[in-house]
């Protein structure tokens, strides 16, 4: 009996030892392959090491190295999943890889615009499991997570904890500016945007961020009533800016407040040119009509409003039909993806949206990654990753659909409000003309003003003959004088 028991014990221990050495050999073999650049083989070996029952420390290390190998293969989302799994099973024995897992996961999720997913995981980590060296990264990720959940106070607190030497400090500043604007604290928001603009100057890779910071700063100054500063910032945008068209539209408001009709009408001339007039720029028609009203240019005002109705009445009808036929976010996304069932005006507007363009790129990345993963031998690990990518794709499509739905609703509401304003302005034309006649007891003679145009050295001017040239966009100037008699 003793013999049998001892033999049984011996058998069990050798099985355990064998199993452990198998796991170790899969992990060690994987590591060797990783170090020699055979990433595909390494991924498969790490999958084996993970799948077999093993101690958690070994499994976590296998996840970590698998994450690195997947990253080298350009399989970013899968790589993030592996690093996330390291953090989900956080324990004392693996503290040395937590720091690296957090850092790598942050880089990947930032590239995939999914930082909130990392933030959610870090939020659940026990206290003391986030090394001080990645504190800034962790706070940023948590900030984004709380921001996406509408928990703005805690988001603010996390973003303020991101240190200036963190790689995400500039992005944290952007979020801080947005949160301060949301709270209508314009002094703070202008501080954050100014700081971000200063940091981004001269750095080519931060150019889009710098432009967005400048735009937000201009908007903040306008909201705070600092019209001159707002105009100064709007004037700094060049045609190479991704926000150039938006700036041409928005700058008209502070310019109108400053009575600068020369540049504001010139900017609107570009926005309402055949190149852009159908890209949901209805507000520009209303702004132009308002400025023309202040100059008593009623005939021109009539033409502008007529053009608005001609261009946007069909767009409004089409968008109202879309609201009825494309009720759900998914339907809207499908219409966008297939470019069918959606008005061209709204489609062009959506394509210009930087958030949607970025999401499309990420979606394509995920689809390509899923196809690449299909090459690997199908084990539970790989299957799980494929499923998670599919879920992420579906989630992103739904997110895009919801965003488009929100934009569609807002744009339609705006267009309807603009249409109402246009109708009021039509009435104002009649009143204005009546005042013009009554004020002078007849009409004043047409003033013939010979405006001498001269420009600085290095500049030249062309007369506008009704023909729009692409290279002239953004360079128009109106030399019109007011026709008002008082």
């Amino acid at each position, binding site marked *: 009996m003793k013999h049998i028991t001892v033999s049984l014990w011996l058998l069990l221990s050798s099985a355990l030892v064998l199993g452990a050495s198998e796991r170790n050999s899969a992990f060690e073999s994987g590591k060797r392959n990783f170090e020699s650049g055979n990433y595909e083989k390494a991924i498969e070996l790490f999958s084996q090491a993970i799948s077999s029952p093993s101690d958690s420390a070994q499994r976590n290390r296998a996840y970590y190295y698998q994450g690195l190998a997947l990253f080298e293969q350009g399989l970013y989302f899968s790589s993030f999943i592996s690093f996330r799994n390291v953090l989900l099973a956080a324990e004392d024995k693996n503290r040395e890889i937590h720091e690296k897992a957090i850092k790598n996961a942050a880089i990947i999720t930032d590239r995939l615009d999914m930082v909130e997913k990392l933030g959610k995981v870090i939020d659940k980590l026990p206290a003391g499991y986030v090394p001080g060296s990645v504190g800034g990264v962790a706070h940023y990720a948590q900030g984004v997570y709380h921001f996406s959940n509408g928990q703005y106070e805690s988001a603010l607190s996390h973003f303020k904890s991101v240190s200036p030497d963190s790689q995400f400090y500039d992005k944290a500043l952007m979020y801080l500016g947005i949160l301060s604007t949301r709270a209508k604290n314009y002094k703070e928001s202008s501080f954050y945007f100014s700081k971000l603009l200063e940091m981004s100057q001269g750095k080519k890779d931060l150019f889009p961020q710098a432009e967005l910071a400048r735009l937000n700063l201009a908007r903040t100054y306008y909201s705070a009533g600092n019209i001159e500063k707002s105009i100064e910032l709007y004037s700094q945008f060049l045609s190479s800016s991704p926000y150039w068209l938006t700036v041409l539209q928005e700058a008209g408001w502070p310019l109108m407040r400053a009575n600068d009709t020369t540049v504001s009408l010139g900017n609107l001339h570009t926005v309402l040119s055949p190149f852009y007039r159908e890209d949901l720029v209805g507000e520009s028609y209303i702004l132009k009509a308002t400025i023309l009203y202040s100059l008593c240019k009623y005939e021109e005002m009539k033409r502008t409003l007529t053009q608005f109705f001609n261009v946007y009445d069909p767009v409004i009808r089409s968008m109202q039909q879309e609201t009825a036929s494309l009720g759900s976010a998914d339907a809207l996304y499908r219409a966008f993806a297939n470019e069918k069932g959606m008005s061209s005006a709204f489609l062009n507007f959506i394509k210009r949206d930087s958030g949607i363009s970025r999401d499309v790129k990420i979606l394509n990345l995920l689809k390509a990654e899923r196809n690449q993963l299909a090459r690997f031998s199908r084990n539970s690990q790989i299957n799980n990753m494929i499923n998670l990518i599919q879920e992420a794709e579906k989630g992103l499509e739904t997110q895009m659909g919801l965003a488009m739905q929100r934009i569609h609703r807002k744009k339609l509401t705006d267009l309807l409000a603009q249409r109402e304003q246009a109708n009021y302005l039509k009435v104002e034309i009649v009143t204005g003309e009546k005042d013009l006649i009554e004020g002078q007891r007849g009409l004043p003679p047409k003033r013939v003003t010979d405006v001498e145009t001269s420009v600085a050295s290095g500049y030249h001017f062309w007369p506008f003959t009704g023909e729009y*040239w692409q290279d*002239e966009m953004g360079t128009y100037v109106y*030399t*019109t004088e007011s*026709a008002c008699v008082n």
Partner: protein
Amino acid sequence: MKMLLLKILSLAMVSHLLWAADENVIEKQLQEIGTIPNEEVVVVQRKFTRKDWRHEFSPLGFGGVPFGTYRRTLLGSASYTLHANDWLGLELLNFSYNKNFFSSFLDDINSNSSGPDIYLDYQKLLYFITTGVQITPFYGKVSTFSRWLAYVEPYFSAGLGVAKTETNSYLALYPGVGLRLFFTEWFSMRLEFRDYIYNEKKRDGNTEMRNNYAVSVALSFWLPKMPR
């Protein structure tokens, strides 16, 4: 009664016409005052091709003197021009190397003629080295197929230099006309027509004025890359 009705009707018509005419005048005036004609809209642009103290290097030029019946010349050229301002350029150096080809025209005549063979007193052109000025009074832009834009500048040139033939060197003058086409601020193309004129010494000791109508195309690179 009828007459009265007729009178009232005519009066009404006349007053309506007068009132309508007044209204038309007012409407017309309102239109005039309230319109912004195109003349009041101006495009103010930075000149795309600002040339103040910029250097134009044209290391690659091809062309020829193709208009001769008997002799045709292919040429490859390189030049350097310093532009003082937008309208005045100093072509400090232009070198064009020539390769001559003789057509079968003379051989055909001689083989079909019963008389003595004709020999033409032609000297092979070897190269031109010239220096001159360019005047650019015009500037414009062209659009191709409503898609691509290019900025064009016609110019006039004149200069002098040396024309080297296989037997002699001559002082040559040239007038010319050309077109510069800018694709970017630092890259352009030149299409030029020049007449190199010199007094060629014949075998019999006489001199004869020779015109060499040269056409060339050259690619140019500009420094600094962006205008100041």
